[in-house]
């Protein structure tokens, strides 16, 4: 089980949180001007990174606030947490074969 450091409440068990998927996916500014390919990219395509991945969590059974996390998807280490809207911290890229 993951131990997730909520930026507002401190480290809590994974079962208190809900997952929000990839972070920093911006809703298109002009949806009416978007091509089908750009829509597909926005709606469906994902980075699905093996390594350091930026993702969103919400502390559903705690403070109920959203935040971002940088987690290694292979080792499950949570490397950083930061508030919604913040720029992601500089982290060393990890590549696995």
């Amino acid at each position: 089980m993951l131990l997730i450091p909520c930026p507002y409440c401190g480290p809590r068990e994974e079962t208190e949180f809900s997952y929000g998927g990839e972070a920093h996916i911006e809703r298109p500014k002009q949806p009416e001007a978007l091509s089908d390919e750009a829509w597909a990219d926005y709606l469906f395509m994902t980075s699905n990174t093996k390594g350091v991945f930026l993702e969103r969590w919400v502390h559903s059974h705690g403070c109920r606030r959203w935040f971002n996390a940088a987690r290694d998807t292979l080792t499950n280490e949570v490397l950083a947490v930061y508030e919604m809207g913040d720029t992601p911290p500089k982290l060393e890229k990890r590549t696995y074969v």
Partner: protein
Amino acid sequence: MKSRYSIFSLLRNALSYHEGWPEAWRSPEPKPSYDVVIVGGGGHGLATAYYLAKEHGITNVAVIERGWLGGGNTGRNTTIVRSNYLWDESAHLYEHSLKLWEGLTRELNYNVMFSQRGVMNLAHSQHDLRELGRRIAANRLNGVDSEFLTPRQVKQFCPIIDLREGGRYPVLGASLQRRGGTARHDAIAWGYARAADALGVDIIQECPVEGFRIEKGRVRAVETAKGTIEAGKVALAVAGHSSVLAELAGFRLPIVCHPLQALVSEPVKPVIDCVVMSNAVHAYISQSDKGDLVIGAGVDRYIGYSQGGGLPVTEETLAAICELFPLFRRMRMMRCWGGTVDTCPDASPIVSKTPVEGMYINGGWGTGGFKSTPGSGWVYAHTIAHDEPHPLNAAFKLDRFTTGYLIDEHGAAAVAH
């Protein structure tokens, strides 16, 4: 030419204390170039190689595998085989696969231990009942055997299930596919490997892919730990690593990878002779020939490549199993592990050409990978050989996420993701 496995070869080898068995497949060094390089030596990749050689006469083929054959999701699933999917496209594809399973042991001369013991899907609520009714009707229209069982018939079919009133998960009915069942996970990889090798396919293990050489939008070669291998065509069949290799090739996929766990108990005498699945509570169970209960759990919600998952997920599954089968409450679990399931937004696979010319993708099978192994290899081989999909997999294109022609199989996929 390999010797056939038979009762006579068994007796002959018994005379020499089984020390004279030949290797089931060669382990050659890679040649400098091949017509087709298949990346991924799991069931799907090996089946593809076999059908390329057998159905399409393309034998200058290499299967390259990062680890060992069948060490990924092929060896990590709960070995359930069925074809009762809702939509026409999926039903036809999975039914084709099931038909191939039915003749596979004979065709490969390798016992894949396919046992059509019946797969039962439970309904715990009125909603489940209606969904099952709809799916049974859709299956029958597509020629897939499927029938409805009342609670009394459920009890007859699987006597150890607890249907006393007042349970946490009341059983209101079930669907039953009698032709469904289980098979031996290693055997499917080893059987296809042996048969493909006999037709001239090179199987190269411990050979991770490090990159692709792509010139003017066409793939020319695969860079591997054992050197550069030139390739006329490159076929990806890497399940959980689809996104990783797609990134190396410069395109994106709609796939997310989740950890999915399974566990086995201590071996006991035969106690359950069918497969019982409960989509709503994420519990499915069968008994292996060795005697251990094989139990599948739900997915962890987050993206993960760790091939392991959290204890709360297995705890929830085991709680449901103990509720439905109280006699298992004192069973001890021996092992638990995880696989990396590659899931698409519509819970259907991608068997398709890619934006890179000469490169093909077979992935996103999610929780349907094992049962589809023969059919997947069969349609994928056709797609590679003819550079266009077979009618059976024409709908499972990568561009369905652009056109909107999604094939929503979340209901039939059995594990929510």
